[in-house]
């Protein structure tokens, strides 16, 4: 499961009232989490996806009923925006990975990005939700608006594609 800090409910309420300093502070808190979701799905378009997801999140923050549900709500929007942005760009495999940084070993991170690039955005989303976010098939299905059976088959194909690409 991805580690993340909690946002102060008072900060969320201030952002909901439209206070620009609170919106700025909330963006600082959410940007690393949104970047970890958008990176594996949108790859080289990750910064664009993160930007668009955060615009969507901060514009829609008034609609969040319970501040404690913030990160779950953010995750749904970030996955949706990342898949949308990734679909917009046809990305031939082997294209250099720009602006996608690694949390640790950069060489290995490029390998992972290169391998992910051979999968569709929907398959990358399933892998990310399962392995980065640590969700089960039912939870992942709820986020992607598909039945758990579809998550299972996507996961199977994504793992197989991942292994094939990894072994090649």
């Amino acid at each position, binding site marked *: 499961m991805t580690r993340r800090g909690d946002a102060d409910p008072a900060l969320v309420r201030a952002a909901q009232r439209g206070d620009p300093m609170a919106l700025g502070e909330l963006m*600082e808190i959410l940007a690393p989490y949104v970047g970890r979701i958008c990176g594996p799905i*949108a790859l080289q378009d990750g910064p664009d996806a993160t*930007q668009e997801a955060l615009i969507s999140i901060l514009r829609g923050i008034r609609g969040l009923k319970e501040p404690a549900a913030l990160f779950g709500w953010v995750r749904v929007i970030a996955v949706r925006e990342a898949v949308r942005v990734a679909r917009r760009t046809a990305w031939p495999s082997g294209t250099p990975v720009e602006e996608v940084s690694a949390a*640790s070993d950069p060489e290995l991170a490029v390998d992972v990005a290169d391998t992910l690039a051979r999968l569709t955005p929907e398959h990358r989303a399933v892998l990310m939700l399962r392995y*980065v976010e640590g969700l089960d098939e039912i939870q992942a299905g709820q986020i992607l608006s598909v039945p758990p059976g579809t998550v299972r088959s996507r996961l199977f194909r994504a793992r197989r594609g991942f292994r094939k690409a990894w072994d090649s």
Partner: protein
Amino acid sequence: MTENWPVADLDPVRRLRVLAAAVRFPVYVSEVVLPAPVERVWAAAADLERALPSFISTVRSARITRAEGDRLELLATGTLGQRARFDVVLRPGWCLMRSRFVLGAMAAVPEAGGTRFAALGGFRLPGARLAGPLLTVLGDRSMRAFAEHLELHAHP
């Protein structure tokens, strides 16, 4: 295995674009690529007491009255003598300022050929939508004034 998965970064200029799209009043946003390294551009921009009067024609002086980490309090005096207290967040490549009526932000990131510098300004007033064209004129002038800032073009 997942610690090596790609992570997308949201640089300060992108953060400024997000903020511009998220606030609920009209703002002016301008971006320019300056032929100077980001350290020099940011040194000029972050020196708020000198930078604000030099590139915002309606500000006569600016004085930092309190500083705690990256949070500052700044008192700006306008050309007509009016005063405004700003809450400021100032970090490398990022500055956000808010008074009762005004929002301002600056951001800088390295880019091929120099530095991408972005600025945002807006009035937090009821009916501020009418100020849109004025904001554009003020913003253009301020951006030109900053781009022509002597220190950005001085040789080290």
